[in-house]
């Protein structure tokens, strides 16, 4: 009996030991960066704690335009530019992909199977194949005046979010479809018998059940749009339109920029991402997995 107890304790320690060690190594680079943003001079040591404490990095980061050697770039301007890509992308895509998934999962109509097959087919298509012709399309003489050099908000970023009006994100559609599968159809049918139309069924009857997956889809879209780098790199020409993902790599450690200030700005630029993630997290972690594959 005693032997078993010891073995059990040993196994538990090993289990927690491994998992804590892995978590530690994964998070350490991020923790280290936070420490290094308070460290004066060089890059700091392997320790998280700064050798010579300074607030210089952070005070610089908050001053707008706060980019030191990269003159004229304000962090907050870049953040607003990022949001001009993120906001339409999240708002429209969450909605249009929901409608598409609703139709494919809950309506019986001719061609349903073809639509479903095309959605799964495009899910497996690498984005690289679409990129060059779409660039040629947006840059063509007919289309370019619509968005290039536009002074309206959101419009200079049109090529980066226009697809969201048309449910082009197959992965979002797929996640919704998988979730719809787990909701019994009786619910829809009962509501229709009570006199609700199909749109009322979606927005009044199913919406409360769909809430976690809607938030999950919106959050995943937020993360990918916020982090998007290749899209802005290809389409955005003038420096005033640069989002965070284009401004940050221009930050280099030099005579006016200490390591601390570079780290502080990087941390500041992902802060919104962290805040949004943690406020939606209770719906999210696990849900992505729950909905990604079922059945």
């Amino acid at each position, binding site marked *: 009996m005693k032997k078993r107890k010891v073995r059990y304790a040993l196994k538990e320690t090993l*289990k*927690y030991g*491994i*998992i804590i060690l*892995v*978590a530690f190594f*994964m*998070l350490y*680079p991020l923790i280290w*960066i936070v420490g290094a943003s308070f460290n004066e001079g060089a*890059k700091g040591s*392997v320790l998280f704690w700064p050798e010579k404490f300074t607030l210089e990095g952070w005070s610089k980061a908050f001053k707008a335009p706060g980019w030191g050697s990269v003159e004229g770039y304000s962090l907050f301007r870049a953040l607003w530019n990022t949001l001009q890509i993120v906001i339409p992308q999240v708002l429209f895509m969450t909605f*249009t992909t929901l409608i598409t998934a*609703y*139709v494919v999962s809950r*309506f019986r*109509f001719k061609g349903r199977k073809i*639509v479903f097959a*095309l959605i799964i087919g*495009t899910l*497996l298509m*690498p984005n*690289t*194949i679409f*990129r*060059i*012709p*779409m*660039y*040629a*399309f947006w840059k063509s003489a007919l289309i370019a005046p619509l968005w290039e050099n536009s002074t309206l908000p959101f419009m200079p970023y049109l090529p980066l979010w226009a*697809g969201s*009006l*048309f*449910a*082009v994100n197959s992965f979002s*559609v797929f996640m919704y479809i998988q979730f719809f599968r787990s909701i019994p159809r009786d619910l*829809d049918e009962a509501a*229709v*018998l009570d006199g609700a139309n*199909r749109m009322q069924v979606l927005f009044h009857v199913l919406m409360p059940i769909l809430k976690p997956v809607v938030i999950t889809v919106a959050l995943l879209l937020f993360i990918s749009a*916020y*982090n998007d*780098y*290749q899209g802005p790199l290809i389409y955005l020409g003038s420096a005033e339109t640069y989002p*965070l*993902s284009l401004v*940050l*790599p221009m930050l280099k450690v030099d005579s006016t920029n200490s*390591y601390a200030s570079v780290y502080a700005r*990087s941390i500041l*630029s*992902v802060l919104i*991402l962290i805040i949004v*993630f943690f406020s939606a997290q209770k719906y999210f*972690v*696990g849900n992505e*997995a729950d909905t*990604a*594959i079922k059945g």
Partner: protein
Amino acid sequence: MVGEKKWLPYVLLIPWLIGFLLFKLYPFINSFIMSLFEEKGRNVVFVGLEHYKTLFNPNLWEGQQFLNSLKVTFIYVFITVPLILVVSLLVAQILAQKIKGVGFFRTAFYIPTLLGANVGIVFLWRYIFETDGLINHFLALFGVERVPFLGRPAGAMASIILLRVWQFGSTMLIFLNALKNVPETLYEAAMIDGANKFQRFRHITLPMITPIILFNGVMRLIECFQAFNGPNLITQGGPENSTRVINLLIYETAFKSGNLNLGSAMSWILFIIIMLFTILIFRSSRYWVYYQD
């Protein structure tokens, strides 16, 4: 359903249909057409499969570049994808057991996925691998001499692979969910038959989650074949082209040098390679994927 309007689903699908035609089908076909042409001065000339021949000709500079990128991409993909699968399955396996603070660990393991794709963090990765960076500080504790990781082909490759493997969070969450759906009764039956822990994992857990391994494997494969941020921001393809993955070469050819036609040919080759591997994996799945129903 009763009294349903027959046209309603079609009307609701109009946005998706426009999206499919304009953002998927049109560029898909057009990128192939573009790959058959070449800009000569102000004219666009039909050249047939000439670009493809160039790309596979090791005697031409473009061919050398392209074949090298193919090799580099294969190395990257076939180390990264298995590593992600193994690491995320192992961590998921531990988290699937009764463990305190599962919620905390799930979040902790997801944070690198959340931040790892962000440019702000990606380019800090450079400082971590630098000769004077965190990793070398750490190795110095054990008396190891400083290694210029980013200055050596293998070290540069390792740093971009690590950056990607670090972001195993979403793959792990999908595995974790699958592990929890394995019926407890199967394990109980196996324990009665005297199966030990490893045997239970090998003969129950693994077969039961093969559909998920297939899903995760295919999704990660498609994604890793198109890696871009790490190679562009950390190593810039170097040293000596050792991390110039194909998507980076396509970017440089099409958007930096402005040769959209040659870039399209490269995209098509990448597309065909990805399709071949996807088909191969799905074909082979009948031998190793276990479906319950």
